[in-house]
């Protein structure tokens, strides 16, 4: 080469520098790899734990409270998501301004808001369950520290329909009354924890639905919302017409003893439970006891027939309306002379019934009353059921035995009465009534009287609803029905004695007469203007039956013949 010396010099120099750079590269590469290996093997567990701790978090999934549906699957109680306003008072920079803005939108007094916003808590509800429109307005106002969150709410789409039966849920999401309370453990959503990944900003990643979300089950009742509705409409008309204090209806399916309707008037809308008095929450059908009056007579007759003391055509002297029992006088509304047993029922003679009871004797009569399930719970799958009051026969005076024949001195619930008639209509087999559809399987019956006795009583009850009977007003056009009226004096809770102007009007019956499908018990407490079961309660029965039987596929006879 021409420029040999500097060239050679530079040549070896650059070779050395290049070699140094390459060796340095290799050395640093090796160090990096060793450090990597160290991180990934020796320290692997440590970094993996840190990784899992920062990336994964436990998310609690809370399942929606199960819906309650009626027999046909129509919803009676559902859980919906609504918007709620809440606040972190510490972040609210100007409580006065925030309060005035919010009070304009929410129509809440400024003072209450001011109090909430100036507290030292980190969380407070401003208003729960507001409309989307209001939520939008609040969002747009952009008040610091005020948040809109999604909040679950139990909603009852049919409002008062079966309100007392369904009950309601408190703000903590647990049932406080009715089925919501009784089946809280079934309805309330299960919780499940799931490992969920999140990002560096703390946002959760969607990692698939938790298994429990697949659970779409619901609590199905035997209540049919149509029958419930029809019953409610009928009883409301009657209760308003006679300015009653309260009224109840039960509709029972005879073949299974499932509750088709359970009505308490005055109605109660569980959506607004806070605005009702706790009295209105009560499911009086199973909780309140009252004297059943003449509707009790079929029981004494059944006992007499079972014991073969009397036969349907045996005749009884009804003392022309006035019968002395030691210390007391029993009276009939209409005086009767000699009546057959069947007519005693048809004309509802107290004296006749009392005489039957006295022939039976206290012990046997008591035994039969208990056999009908009275004085003990029916065993319906609801909580809070009353037992009723049947005093032990040993403490009965003669007058007690006599009056017990027409339902005085005896306390029953509407449901007990309906079940009693259900047993008569079901050829003498009594069953536990139930309201949860799933409980149908474990429902074995118990015979309490012979098939013949039941048939004889049904014949008598059909006669009650014939022309001239006390229950003539209960017969819908085109159907034959059976039933019993009742008019009971109410005990004044203040004096403990029967009050003069206060009555309970009843009608309990079954339909259709030849092959009963349903039992309807109608009880109207303290009607004004009319007091008799045959006048007040029987038309309610008629209206219910008239609407329900075609719905069940049983059409009126005369109409069929005409067309």
């Amino acid at each position, binding site marked *: 080469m021409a*420029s040999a010396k*500097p*060239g050679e*010099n*530079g*040549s070896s*120099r*650059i*070779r050395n*520098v*290049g070699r140094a*750079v*390459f060796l*340095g*590269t*290799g050395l*640093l*590469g090796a*160090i*990096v*790899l060793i*450090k*990597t*290996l160290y*991180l*990934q*093997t020796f*320290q*692997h567990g*440590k*970094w*993996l734990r*840190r*990784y*899992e701790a*920062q*990336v994964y978090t436990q998310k609690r999934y809370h399942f929606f409270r199960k819906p309650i549906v009626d027999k046909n699957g129509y919803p009676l109680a559902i859980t919906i998501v609504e918007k709620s306003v809440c606040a972190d008072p510490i972040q609210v920079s100007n409580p006065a301004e925030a309060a005035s803005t919010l009070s304009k939108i929410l129509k809440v007094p400024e003072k209450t808001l001011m109090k909430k916003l100036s507290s030292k808590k980190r969380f407070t509800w401003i208003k729960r369950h507001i409309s989307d429109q209001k939520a939008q307005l609040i969002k747009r106002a952009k008040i610091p520290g005020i948040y809109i969150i999604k909040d679950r709410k139990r909603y009852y789409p049919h409002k008062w329909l079966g309100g007392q039966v369904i009950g309601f849920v408190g703000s903590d999401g647990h049932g406080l009354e009715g089925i919501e309370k009784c089946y809280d453990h079934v309805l309330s959503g299960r919780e499940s924890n799931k490992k969920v*990944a*999140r*990002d*560096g*900003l703390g946002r959760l*990643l969607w990692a698939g639905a938790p298994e429990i979300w697949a659970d779409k089950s619901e609590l199905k009742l035997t209540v049919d919302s149509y029958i419930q509705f029809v019953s409610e409409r009928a009883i409301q008309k009657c209760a308003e017409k006679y300015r009653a204090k309260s009224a109840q209806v039960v509709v029972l399916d005879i073949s299974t003893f499932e509750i088709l309707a359970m009505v308490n008037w005055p109605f109660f809308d569980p959506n607004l439970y806070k605005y009702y008095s706790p009295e209105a929450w009560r499911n009086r059908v199973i909780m309140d006891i009252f004297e059943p009056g003449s509707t009790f007579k079929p029981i004494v007759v059944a006992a007499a027939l079972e014991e073969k003391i009397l036969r349907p055509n045996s005749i009884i002297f009804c003392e022309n309306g006035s019968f002395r029992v030691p210390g007391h006088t029993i009276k009939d509304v209409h005086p009767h002379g000699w009546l057959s047993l069947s007519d005693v029922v048809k004309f509802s003679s107290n004296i006749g019934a009392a005489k039957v009871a006295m022939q039976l004797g206290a012990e046997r009569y008591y035994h039969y009353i208990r056999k009908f399930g009275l004085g003990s719970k029916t065993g319906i799958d609801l909580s809070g059921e009353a037992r009723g009051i049947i005093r032990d026969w040993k403490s009965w005076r003669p007058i007690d035995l006599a009056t017990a024949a027409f339902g005085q001195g005896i306390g029953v619930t509407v449901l007990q009465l309906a079940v009693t008639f259900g047993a008569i209509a079901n050829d003498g087999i009594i069953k536990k009534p139930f309201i949860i559809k799933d409980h149908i399987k474990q429902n074995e019956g118990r015979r309490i009287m012979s098939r013949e006795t039941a048939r004889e009583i049904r014949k008598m009850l059909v006669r009650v609803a014939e022309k001239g009977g006390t229950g003539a007003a209960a017969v819908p056009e085109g159907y034959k029905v059976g039933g019993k009226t009742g008019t009971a004096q109410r005990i004044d809770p203040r004096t403990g004695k029967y009050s003069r102007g206060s009555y309970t009007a009843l009608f309990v019956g079954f339909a259709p007469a030849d092959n009963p499908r349903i039992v309807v018990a109608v009880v109207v407490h303290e009607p004004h203007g009319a007091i008799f079961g045959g006048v007040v309660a029987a038309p309610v029965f008629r209206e219910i039956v008239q609407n329900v039987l075609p719905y069940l596929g049983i059409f009126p006879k005369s109409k069929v013949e005409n067309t």
Partner: protein
Amino acid sequence: MGIRQGQKNSASDIPGRHVGREIFLISSILIAFGMVILFSASFLYSLDLNGNPFYFLKKQFCYGIVFFVVVFLTSCFPLKFYYRASKWAVVFFMLLLGGLLIPGVGTCYNNACRWYLLPGGVHFQPAEFAKVCWTVYLASALVRRQEKLASFTDGLLFYTIWASLLAGLILLEPDFGGALLIGFIMVVMLAGAGVPWRHFLVYLLIGALVFYFFVYRVDYRWERVISTYNPWDNPRAQGYQIIQSWIAIGSGGILGHGLGQGLEKLRFLPEPFTDFILSVVGHELGFIGMSFTMLFYLTFLLALYESWKGFRMPENRLLGLGILSLFAVQILTNGAIVVGLFPTKGLPLPFLSYGGSHLVAAGVMLGLWLRMIREERIGEWEWK
């Protein structure tokens, strides 16, 4: 033709003559592998950003095509053209870098204004190209002024002032890593060109001064240095990046979480598809993937080194040394940063990181290298 003749004549005495193909192949594989890792590291981020998981992959794919075009075009021109133009290119890029200092001209991310926004949404980072031009310029100038290198003022001091100008402009963006690279390349190439060793003693002094004024006295840099070795002092702020990188790599273990399975990229690991893309490799592919990647890079550097050993022409030898060092420093520094050996600097990993400028700059360097292999092979080095 002369070319064919030259090939025949010099076939046996040039050791690295076939290596050009291997270098090209390895860099292509690295770019393809980079696309896979980039997609894994960026798809969730871009999904969150604009609903399109392929957003960054698409852009990087375009840059990849540009890379190959640039490699081809660069290798089309004779090296003497580059050597002659390099001085003016350095001046041109100094002007561009100076332009970035005018407020409102450059585009800034995280307080660093390093980019020109070109039409079509392309970000152009002049510093990346300035490095290349600087290397080419040094190669030509040091050979041309070989005789003057023995003098302290005409040699080391002269280039140090040049380098300080260039590095100062880059430092003002601020881009400390880029500035350091300019200085590092200069030192390597001055050493290679034959500057007396004793002159380098000055750098101890300058280095101490630079360290004091530009590192120790600049809070965030010093904190970065400190936090590299004591990240737990401030794990939520200065120590955050390195801790997250350790978590990513360490939790990967031998086999990794699986491609696309790692969750560190979900805004835990900062810059998961640019500066810390190697952490994602370690996170998702484990030590296996990490060592394969590093070995691939080392093979790439080895191939460069092997072919460099065959270079005869002084300019080419110097340029080769510069480009080899540039690649080596960028790759190794990035690796060392990611595992926590070096303080965190904004240095992309060649071929793997997202970004057009550094990829195209790498394309220019690779194109120059291929041209050097070709010219060495046909003996065209006697162009003077």
